[in-house]
C-alpha cells in the first residue's frame, strides 16, 4: 500500500508536467483526488492494513494527499494565469480610433469676456448693476453732464426712438440709475456690463456693441485708487506682467479724465504691428467723476469723491483671444463660436 501511494504520487506529478486547460485539470483532479478517485480507492483498502502499520500508512496517505492538492493548486494557478493572458491578448482594441463624439457647446466670446471681467471685479468687492437699453436723454446724456448742444455729443452718434428717448450710447446711464437707487449711501462699487448702440457700421465699428462701466463712490476716493483698480484688472485679465499707462483725455462725465493703455498683449511692449510700434494698446476711458454727475446722482461732491471707467468688451475680447475682425462677433459662425 505504501508503494501504491508512492506510485500514485509520482505518476500524478509526472502527468501534471504536461499541458492542460483548466477543465482538463479539473477532470484529472477529480480522477485522482475525488470521492471516487484513485487515491480514495486506495485509502478504502486501509482496513486491510495491520493495526501497527495503520498510523504510519495513514500519515503517509495524508501527506500524499496534501502534496497532490498543493501540486494541483499550483498547476491551476499557472493555467489560470496563462488563460487570462490569452484572453487579454484576444481583447486588444485599436486605441488610435477616435473617441466617442460629444457635442461641445460654447459661450459667446463676448459673454465669456464679460463673465471673466465680472469675476475679477466681484473679487475686488464690486456688485453688478444693470439697466434699460432704451434710455431717456436725461440718463444717457444730461445727467452725465452732457447737456443738449454740448460739442461732446458729437462723439456719439445715436439711434433715436423719439427726440427724448434713444438707444443708450454707453452703459454710463446705469451709473446714474444706481446712484439714485442707492440714495447717497456709501460705498457704492458697481460695474455695469451690457449692450450699447451707436450709429456707426464699418470694419471697426458695429452699431451694437458691449461695454463694461465701473463706478466707485466713497469718502476719499483718489485717482491713485483708480490706477490701482485698473492695474489689478489688467493683470488679472491679461497676465501678471501687465503695465498700464494713463493719458489725459476728456469725457464730459469725468474731470480729470484719462485714457488707459495696457502694455501690448502681442509683443509685451516691445512694439509691433498691433500696437503700431508704440508698445501700448488703448483699452478704456476713465476719470474722477465730475461733480455735476455726482450731484445728479444725489451725492454731495464735497462729501464724497468717485472714479469711473468704461471699456469696450469687443476690444478686450479681441486682444484677449487674438481676434482680428470685429464682425466675427456678430456673424456667429459656429466654426468661430466653437473655439470658445
Amino acid at each position: 500500500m505504501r508503494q501504491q501511494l508512492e506510485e500514485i504520487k509520482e505518476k500524478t506529478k509526472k502527468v501534471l508536467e504536461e499541458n492542460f486547460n483548466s477543465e482538463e485539470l479539473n477532470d484529472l483532479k477529480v480522477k485522482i483526488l475525488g470521492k471516487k478517485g484513485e487515491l480514495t480507492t486506495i485509502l478504502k483498502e486501509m482496513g486491510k492494513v495491520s493495526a501497527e502499520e495503520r498510523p504510519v500508512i495513514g500519515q503517509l496517505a495524508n501527506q500524499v494527499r496534501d502534496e497532490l492538492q498543493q501540486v494541483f493548486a499550483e498547476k491551476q494557478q499557472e493555467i489560470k494565469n496563462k488563460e487570462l493572458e490569452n484572453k487579454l491578448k484576444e481583447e486588444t482594441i485599436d486605441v488610435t480610433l477616435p473617441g466617442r463624439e460629444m457635442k461641445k457647446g460654447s459661450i459667446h466670446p463676448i459673454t465669456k469676456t464679460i463673465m471673466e471681467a465680472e469675476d475679477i471685479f466681484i473679487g475686488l468687492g464690486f456688485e453688478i448693476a444693470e439697466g434699460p437699453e432704451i434710455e431717456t436723454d436725461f440718463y444717457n446724456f444730461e445727467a452725465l453732464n452732457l447737456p443738449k448742444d454740448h460739442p461732446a455729443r458729437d462723439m456719439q452718434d445715436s439711434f433715436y426712438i423719439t427726440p427724448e428717448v434713444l438707444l443708450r450710447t454707453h452703459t454710463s446711464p446705469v451709473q446714474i440709475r444706481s446712484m439714485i437707487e442707492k440714495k447717497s449711501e456709501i460705498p457704492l462699487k458697481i460695474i455695469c456690463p451690457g449692450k450699447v448702440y451707436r450709429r456707426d457700421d464699418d470694419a471697426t465699428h458695429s452699431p451694437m456693441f458691449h461695454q463694461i462701466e465701473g463706478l466707485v463712490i466713497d469718502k476719499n476716493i483718489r485717482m491713485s485708487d483708480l490706477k490701482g483698480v485698473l492695474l489689478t484688472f489688467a493683470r488679472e485679465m491679461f497676465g501678471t506682467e501687465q503695465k498700464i499707462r494713463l493719458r489725459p483725455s476728456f469725457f464730459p462725465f469725468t474731470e480729470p479724465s484719462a485714457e488707459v493703455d495696457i502694455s501690448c498683449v502681442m509683443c509685451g511692449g516691445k512694439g509691433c504691428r498691433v500696437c503700431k510700434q508704440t508698445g501700448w494698446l488703448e483699452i478704456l476711458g476713465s476719470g474722477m467723476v465730475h461733480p455735476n454727475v455726482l450731484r445728479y446722482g444725489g451725492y454731495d461732491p464735497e462729501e464724497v469723491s468717485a472714479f469711473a471707467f468704461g471699456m469696450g468688451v469687443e476690444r478686450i475680447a479681441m486682444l484677449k483671444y487674438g481676434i482680428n475682425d470685429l464682425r466675427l462677433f456678430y456673424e456667429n459662425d459656429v466654426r468661430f463660436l466653437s473655439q470658445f
Partner: protein
Amino acid sequence: MNLSYKWLKEYVDFDLTPETLAEKLTSSGIAVEGITNLSEELSDIVIGEVISCEQHPNADKLSLCKVSDGQGEYPVVCGAINVAKGQKIVFAKIGATLPGDFTIKAAKLRGVDSEGMICSAKELGISSEWLLPEQRDGILVLDTDAPIGSDAIAYLDLDDYVMELDLTPDRGDCLSLINVARQVAAITGSRVRFPDIAFNEVITESDKGIDIKIEAPEDCPRYVGKIVENIQVGPSPFWVQNKLRNAGIRPISNVVDVTNYVLLELGQPLHAFDYEQLQGQQIIVRRSKKGETIVTLDEQERTLDDTMLLICDAARPVAIAGVMGAENSEVTEKTQTVLIESAYFNPVSVRKTSTKLGLRSEASARFEKGINYEQTKVAAQRAAQLLSEISSAIPHESETDVYPNPIERARVSLRFTKVNQLLGTSLTNEEIKDILKSLQLEMVEDNGDSVIFQIPAFRPDLRIEEDLIEEVASIFGLENIPVTLPYGDTHKGARNTEQKIRTRIFEVLKAAGANEIITYSFINRNHLDKILLPENDLRRNVVEVLNPLSEEQGVMRTTLIPGILDNALRNHNRKSENLLTFEVGKVYYKNGFPEKTELPEEEMKLSVFGRGRMAGDWKNKAEEIDFYYIKGMIDALFSSLKINDIEYVPANDSGEYHPGRCAKILLGGTFIGYIGELNPKVADNYSLSGRNYMAELHLDTIITSCEEKISYRYLPKYPGMNRDLAILIDDQIRAGQIVETIEKTGGELLRNVEVFDLYQGAQIPEGKKSIAFSLQFQAEDRTLTDDEVSIIIEKIKQVLEETFAAKLRD
C-alpha cells in the same frame, strides 16, 4: 488737425525731436496720433533756373533745357509742356532721390544726354489736392525770387514733420499754433513768441468806411471789421502755400490764404468780404427770419430758420455767422478792397446752426468750441499785415471794433488739499501754483490754503476747481500719480440672484452642446411677416428706430426668432449643417410708450434652435435633432434650475411653428413660451431646407420662479419595485394624458412613470399605437410586497381601459 512741427518753432523754442514732442504733448492731454516726415524719401534737390529751353532734336514732345544750380550747368531733357526759359524750378541732380525709391541717374533720351530732372509737384510727393490749379500739370514753377542753388526741400517746407492731433472736445484752443505753442511752453518751461504786428504803410483817410451794428449781442458779443485796399488777388508766395499745405488746407488765393493762415496761427476764423459788393457801407449782425434763404460759397441755397445768426449788409445777408460766407460778396479776381471780419460768436449758436444746416467748416469747428475773445482785433490786424506783406495791399490804419459788453475773464478758486485728495498725490502748494502759472493762469488771490486764478481768454474750458486739478495732473504727469487701492468699508462683491441664475443657464446650455450666439437687437420689420405672426400678435407692437442705418435695423426686436433663423441660414450657407444654438437677450415692446410710459418695456428672452444632427462617430450614428431633442434640453434646463411644475400643452396659435408640432410651455400654469418645429412655410421664407426646431422662453418669469435652494430628499431605506406596463391605444391619445392618468390612479406609492417604448407599424392596427411605461413603486416605511403593487397595477389597467379603451399587451 495737422500741426506743422517747423511752423510751430516760429512761436516757441524747444529742443525736442518730433517723436519726443509728440510723446510729451500726448501725456499732457494733446494727443498726437501720428507723425509724417515729409522729406523721408527726398534728398539732394535744389532750386535751379532754366537758362535755355529748346525743342529736342529727335522728339516733338520733349524739350532740351539747360539748368543752372548756381555752380554748374546741366543739360536736362524735360517732357513738361509748361517748361520755359527763365523759370525757377525744382532740380533733382544726379544722385538725388525722390519718393517711390527713385534715384536720378544720368541718361540718354532719344540720343541726347540728360543730367537730372526738373520736378513736378507730384514727383516730390505733393498731392494735387494741395496745389493751385496751374500747379497740377507739368513742372512746379517757383517764385521768381527763389534763391538758385539752395535746398528746394527747405524752400518748399518739405523739411517738416506733420503731426496729426487728435484733440478732445474741450481742447479746441489747440486748433491753433499759438495755443499749442503755449502748451509746449508749459511743458518745457519755455516762452511763447507772439507774432509782431506792424505795418509799413497804412491808409489813414479813405471814403471807404464801414458801419457795424450788432442787433443780437448775445449771439455775437464782438465784431471787428478791418478794411484793406489796393488788393491784387493772385496766388500766395510759396512760404504761405507751404504752410497751408502742411496743415492740410488747400491754397486758393492770397486773400483767402491769409484768412486761413491766421485761422491756423491764432485760431481766429476770419472772413473776407469783397468790400465793393457790400451795400450801404454797412454790416448788420442779426437773427435770420424764418424761411430766409442765402446762397453760400459752395453754391448751395440754404433755407434758414429764426434761430440762426446772419451777417448782412444794408440790403441782404452776406454770410451765415461763423459758418460760411455768401456767394454774393465773395472775393474774386477783380476784388480790390476787402473787409476782413474777425468776430466772437456764441459757441452754442454756431453749433446749433451748423448742425441744423449740416454744414461744418474750419471756422464753425473753432467757433463752436469757444475761441479767444480777447484776440479778435489782433487777428484782424494780423491778417491785414500779412496781406500787405505778400501783396500790394494797404490796410486802413484803424478798424471798427464793436464790443458792447466786454466778457470778463473767469476766476476759479482752488484748494490745495482738494488737489492731493482727488489725485492721491502729495504736491506742495508751490508746486501746484507753479504748474498753473506755467499755463499762463494768473494768480489773483492767495489765501494760504486756497488760491484764486484768473483764466486766460484762450482757455474757455477751465471753469471749475476740478478743471484746474486736471491741468495740474496733466502737467505733473499721470504716470507720476501713485498706485493705490481704495480703503475703508468694503462690501463683498457678488452677482445677484438673477445674474447667478442667468449664469447657470449659460452653463447648462453649453453643457448640452449648444453654441451661444449674439445677434443685433434691431431687425428688419419684414421679419414679423416672414415668421407669419398674426395681425393681432403682441410681438407686432414694435419700437421703431427714428434714424436707422438701414431698414435692416429699422425696429427693435420683439422676438429672438428672426435673429436665430438668419444665423441658421448664414451657417447653412457656410456648410455648417448641424446646428444647436441659443441666445439670451432682450426684446422690446412699445406697449404704452410714449403716451403712458416713459420708456418702452424690455424683457429678457431665451431662444434655442436646432437642425441637422447631433454628434455622431464611427461607432454610433449621429442622432437627428428633433422636437424631443430640444424638449430634452429645455427639460434639463428646468431640472437644473429646480423647476418642476412644467406642463407642455399642444398649441397651434403661433404662426412661426408647425401647427401639429408645437407646444405651449406652462410654468405653474403661467405661459412662458413655445417650443416646436419651425413652420415649413417660415423655413421656406428663410430658405432653410429640412426640419428646424426651436423654443423661445420668457426668461424673467423663469428666473422669478426658480428655486435657488436645493433641499435634499432622503434616499429610500427600503427596496422599491419596478413594473412595466404596455398598452395598445388609440393613436390620438397623447402620452402626457396617459401618464397623468396613471399618476393619478397610482397614488402615493407610485413614485415615477416613464415612457420607455413607443411602437407603430407591423402587427399594430391602423390608428393605434403601442406604448410602454415603466412604473416605479416605493414606500418610505416598508418593503413593498408583490401583492400590494399588483393591486395598484390592476387598478391602473382598469382605469386605462375605461378611460382610453386601452388594451393590455403582454
